[in-house]
């Protein structure tokens, strides 16, 4: 028994020795990539990869963070990353890469190769935020906003619900976009990131739609917000419209949507949306005006704008709402139904039935 104990203590010690030998590098010998951008290169079918690297520092003051931007062109992304490693002094680590940007020209050409690389690399997070950079990823990544508290966080606080929650900013994760790239009856969308005019902040208020290959349509900010509300049920948004010479701003607090699709030869898609909320700006003496009238005016406004948006998206032959998938899901469709849907989608009729409920009128009458 005693001999066995000695033997096993020796064995455990041996295991400890072997641990020091494996591939871990110290944290001060690593460069953490906080954001990454992929653009078209200057030569045909080459890529330009830009990485934003965090330089670890002791102090945590806003605007004091140090980052380094490196860029490299190569015939493939993997080669570009390999070459990037040769111009930095520390090991590149993609484990903390929270934002991945595609340049606009790359999106116009198609993004099959980048997707392939991103899904093969096991160290790229599936929950990294994706975006399309205008005019290109390099210029967006070069920007160094004053508000950054730690490297790169201004960029990823724009997305998700950690930092600012803007109804114009859509959030798209890598895994969601990759699935949309192959899914039947559902296409991808990407938020568009631009640098602000004063060159001190990012501007994320538009959305781009892609089909299975490349960029198809970009929406303006108002339409992007409507898309965010209707497709992603985003409820920290507002709907504004003119009313009796002033403007009514209806702030949402809850959005419920439901889509029903008929099984006719040319299906009719009925989009039900129920939004409740309160008025942030309303005409004076609101209590005397009647709420149902304002509600019906708002409903008519939402119906019109949403039908226009749906028709515009259909006209670009993309389906970011996933109507095709929903059609298949509703009728448990197979390949034949899918072929039918693809054929008739350009002629599909959209109807919107909105229900607006004004719950509160704000603190004043």
């Amino acid at each position, binding site marked *: 028994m005693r001999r066995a104990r000695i033997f096993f203590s020796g064995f455990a010690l041996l295991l400890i020795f072997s*641990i020091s030998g*494996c*591939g871990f590098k110290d944290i001060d010998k690593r460069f953490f990539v906080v954001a990454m951008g992929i653009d078209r290169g200057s030569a045909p079918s080459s890529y330009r990869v830009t990485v934003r690297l965090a330089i670890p520092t002791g102090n945590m003051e806003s605007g004091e963070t140090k980052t380094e931007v490196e860029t490299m062109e190569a015939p493939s992304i993997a080669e570009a990353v390999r070459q990037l490693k040769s111009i930095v002094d520390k090991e590149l680590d993609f484990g903390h890469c929270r934002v991945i940007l595609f340049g606009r020209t790359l999106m116009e050409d198609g993004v099959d190769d980048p997707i392939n690389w991103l899904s093969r690399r096991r160290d790229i997070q599936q*929950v990294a935020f994706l975006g399309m950079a205008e005019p290109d990823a390099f210029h967006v990544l070069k920007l160094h906003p004053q508000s950054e508290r730690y490297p790169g966080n201004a960029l990823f606080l724009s997305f998700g619900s950690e930092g600012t929650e803007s109804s114009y900013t859509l959030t798209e994760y890598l*895994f969601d976009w990759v699935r949309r790239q*192959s*899914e039947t009856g*559902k296409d991808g969308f990407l938020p568009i990131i631009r640098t602000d005019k004063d060159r001190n902040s990012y501007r994320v208020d538009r959305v781009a739609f892609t089909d299975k290959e490349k960029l198809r349509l970009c929406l303006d900010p108002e339409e992007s917000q409507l898309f965010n509300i209707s497709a992603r049920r985003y409820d920290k948004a507002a709907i504004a419209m003119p009313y009796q010479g002033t403007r009514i701003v209806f702030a949402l607090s809850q959005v419920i949507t439901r889509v029903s699709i008929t099984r006719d030869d040319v299906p009719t898609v009925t989009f039900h949306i129920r939004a409740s909320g309160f008025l942030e700006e309303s005409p004076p003496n609101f209590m005397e005006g009647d709420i149902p009238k304002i509600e019906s005016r708002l409903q008519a406004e939402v119906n019109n704008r949403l039908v226009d948006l749906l028709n515009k998206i259909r006209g670009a032959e993309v389906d970011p709402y996933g109507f095709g*998938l929903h059609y298949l899901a509703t009728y448990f469709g197979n390949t034949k139904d899918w072929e039918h849907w693809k054929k008739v989608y350009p002629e599909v009729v959209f109807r919107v039935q909105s229900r607006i409920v004004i719950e509160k009128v704000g603190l004043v009458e």
Partner: protein
Amino acid sequence: MSRYFYYHVIYVGLINIMLFVPWTLVHYRFNGAVSGMAIAAVAGTFLAYLTTSLYLRFPGMSLPDIVNSYLPRGFAVFLNLIGASLWVVAGILVIYSYSSTIQQFFNPDMNPYLFLLLMTAAGVWGASRSTRSVQFAQEIMLLISAPLIIMILFKAIFSPWLDWDAIRVTAGYVRTPPSFISFCAATFVFAGYNTLAVFNRLLPPGTQIRHRWIIPLVCSFFLLVSFFVPIGFHGTVGVAEYLYIWSVTADSMIMEYGFVYRVLYVFLLLYTALSLMFAMNTWHTAMEFIKACHPRHKPKPDQFPVSPANWWINLAFAGLTFGYALWTNEQRNQWVNQNWLIARTFSDVLAAVILGWLAVKAARRKRSPIPSEAASQDS
């Protein structure tokens, strides 16, 4: 006492991810996986009820003890060796796929055999304990992992990014004729009752396993989650592109206010515990099958200190694991996994048939007026 039985049901139900069950099912998702799962749920429940009832007719006896006392020696040894090989392969497959997952997601530069060494060392130590210790270790580990299991399951099911349309589309393929391999893969989720093969020794005579409806309920839930949640996260088409399907699914969830941002790491931590538990159990069971082949074997579920034979048998299992890791690659590993799942389904049915036959035999012997020699072996 029956709670110990349900611990087995739960961790076997969860470990299916490491045996490529979701991967197999996803590959047949348009060709009979869903209908195979539906049939497997019925068959698995039926087998679970039947097998547990049969074991309870042999109080305090493990499957090797039962076959040893009722069957001719050569045949009994043959059955025990089949049992041992099936059980030991289960442990090897889980340890191998867990260590290759870890290598993929933690540190690809690491020597793959180093992690295998750590896992097998822990497995050898755990499995060579006495049956009672193994059972207690199990309870502790499962209770420690329970919060993680619940958290990941609920995070997955209630995630706003889970696409229910994709799940519905796939569920619609229940109308396709079932595929055999998906049926076998799906029955594995229900296979927790099999651990009674050794742990029946610890159930005191007269024990009743109550609330057996837990088996169909919990196992069907695990089966549905492990198949449909990856589809909901990666789409009806995209889901087939991934090899480590659940690791990627866990990586698609985030904890914004958690101390670890990526759920992936929590998931891998949980599966460290579950894989070790599974390896410990399967190797312990395989070891007991092998020990029962000895002509003068006496079951000692509470032995302390354990006999050196325990160590040697488990060290041999560890050696086999290394041999397997040397021989295998991704294609071979999947081939072995699928064939193991098929073999396991047959052995389940076979075990139930043999047990049923022996139960009838035992009842006849008891009724016969002449006290037979088996009665003395029985005690």
